């Protein structure tokens, strides 16, 4: 029974990992760039959510409607102004650029808003549904379901709409996409914006169940990096599934080994899987 409990907890956390990873995979797929400040997008959305709660008592779940568009804009502009300029440069420069942005953002927030941990405690923060011995946290469940919904929305966008297809086409063959009349610069900026919006959504969904501090994003980003590699290079569907698997494995690992190693266990499992399947778990997929 307790294992079931652990599984459910892992699954629910995995939903959030999925949402973060999917955005990262989208960016990686279209631009072949690793966005090291992905976690800071999440962090900024968490602060925004916190302030919206503090000053206008907006429910964290509702504030997704604000954080996602705001961070979309931020991501779009960052891509146009900074990222776009290194796309043709060697990898190391791309990595360092996003790393530099990450460091600047973390420390900027630390400087202005102090490293203090903050939290938003809503009426439902500790609510649970109990079935026999198994207790299911309500905010975790809501976050999971919303995360799932956002991932599904992204999937539909990529499969059904013309802009979505243009993003996929660019990821699969950039030059051919250009020949079809796709404006790559716009596609890149939009993908980055969407990736940022998804990270923002994840941030808002985390607020009722997590702490807020300047460095909060980075551990999530590292997990998302792992999930993206697990899910297969730049595959959105792979990242979504990979996120869930990562959450479950991590929960099981920390239950059977030790909670002190929670953060390391997922990464270790990842390394083991890498030995077996360097191309990721799922291979290539449509999106």
């Amino acid at each position, binding site marked *: 029974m307790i294992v079931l409990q652990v599984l459910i907890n892992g699954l629910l956390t995995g939903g959030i990992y999925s949402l973060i990873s999917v955005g990262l995979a989208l960016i990686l797929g279209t631009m072949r760039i690793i966005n090291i400040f992905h976690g800071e997008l999440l962090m900024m959305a968490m602060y925004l959510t916190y302030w919206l709660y503090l000053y206008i008592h907006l429910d964290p779940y509702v504030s997704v409607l604000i954080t996602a568009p705001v961070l979309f804009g931020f991501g779009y502009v960052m891509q146009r102004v900074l990222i776009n300029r290194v796309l043709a440069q060697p990898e190391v420069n791309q990595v360092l650029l996003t790393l530099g942005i990450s460091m600047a953002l973390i420390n900027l927030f630390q400087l202005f808003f102090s490293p203090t941990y903050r939290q938003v405690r809503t009426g439902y923060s500790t609510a649970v549904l109990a079935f026999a011995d198994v207790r299911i946290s309500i905010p975790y469940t809501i976050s999971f379901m919303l995360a799932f919904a956002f991932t599904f929305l992204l999937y539909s966008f990529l499969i059904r709409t*013309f802009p979505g*297809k*243009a993003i*996929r*086409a660019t990821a*699969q*063959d950039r*030059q*051919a*996409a*250009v*020949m*079809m*009349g*796709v*404006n*790559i610069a716009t596609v890149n900026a939009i993908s980055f914006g969407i990736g940022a919006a998804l990270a923002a959504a994840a941030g808002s969904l985390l607020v009722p169940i997590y702490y807020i501090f300047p460095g909060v994003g980075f551990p999530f980003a590292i997990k998302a990096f792992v999930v993206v590699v697990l899910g297969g290079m730049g595959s959105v569907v792979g990242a979504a599934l990979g996120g869930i698997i990562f959450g479950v494995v991590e929960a099981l690992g920390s239950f059977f080994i030790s909670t002190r190693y929670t953060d390391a266990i997922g990464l270790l499992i990842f390394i083991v899987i890498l030995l077996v399947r360097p191309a990721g778990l799922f291979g*290539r*997929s*449509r999106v």
Partner: protein
Amino acid sequence: MLSVDGIDVAYGVGFPTLRNVSLRLPEGEIIALVGSNGAGKTTLLNTISGLLRPSRGGIRLRDTPLHLLPPHEVAELGIAHVPEGRKLFPMMTVEENLHMGAYTRRSRPHLAAMIESVYDLFPVLRDRRRQYARTLSGGEQQMVAIGRGLMSMPEIIMFDEPSLGLAPLIVREMFEVIKRVNAEGKTVFLVEQNVRFALGICHYAYILEQGQIIGSGKGQDLLNDEFIQTSILGTGLSNSGMDSQADA
């Protein structure tokens, strides 16, 4: 009418790959471009598409200077490019590849009708519509590439070695399709190594060698030209000659 006027194209700062290349594509005609491997044929097509910029000279579609436009705007003007090696979107279905063909604003409203006409042109594709492009046979992939080019309802369509790697029978079929496309009023720019076929169906042809246009003329005249037969198209002709013998 599209005209290429004395362009030089270089990769990096080295010796230009194309030098002083000029040619014209009059409306409604099939113009062939032949030349051996590495002559610069693909480079020329990529330059017309806007993927490369000429360092000298210009390209004009009527009065629009194409060489100043980004590639997606060139596509928007009705110039389709069926690239060398097909370059399909491997993890998209046949139908999605065709959708991408109609990505331009000018063609998007006609998507449904165009898809039907492509399926009429290549009935096999209708059965394969849900299949991923990378799982298709070479011939089917070429059909998708051509269909994708037609989806944009182009005024001018450029084919880069459409017969490459195809069985002789399919090659014939492709050439029939190209003639049909032209009969519907589209200007065709055909790059081919299969010289006999290309010269056979074109109205006019240019010969590109080592980055320069070294000759041009009516297809039939070039085929009969002794100098061209022996010294320049020698290998090309005997190869395709063997093909046609094998067919017979």
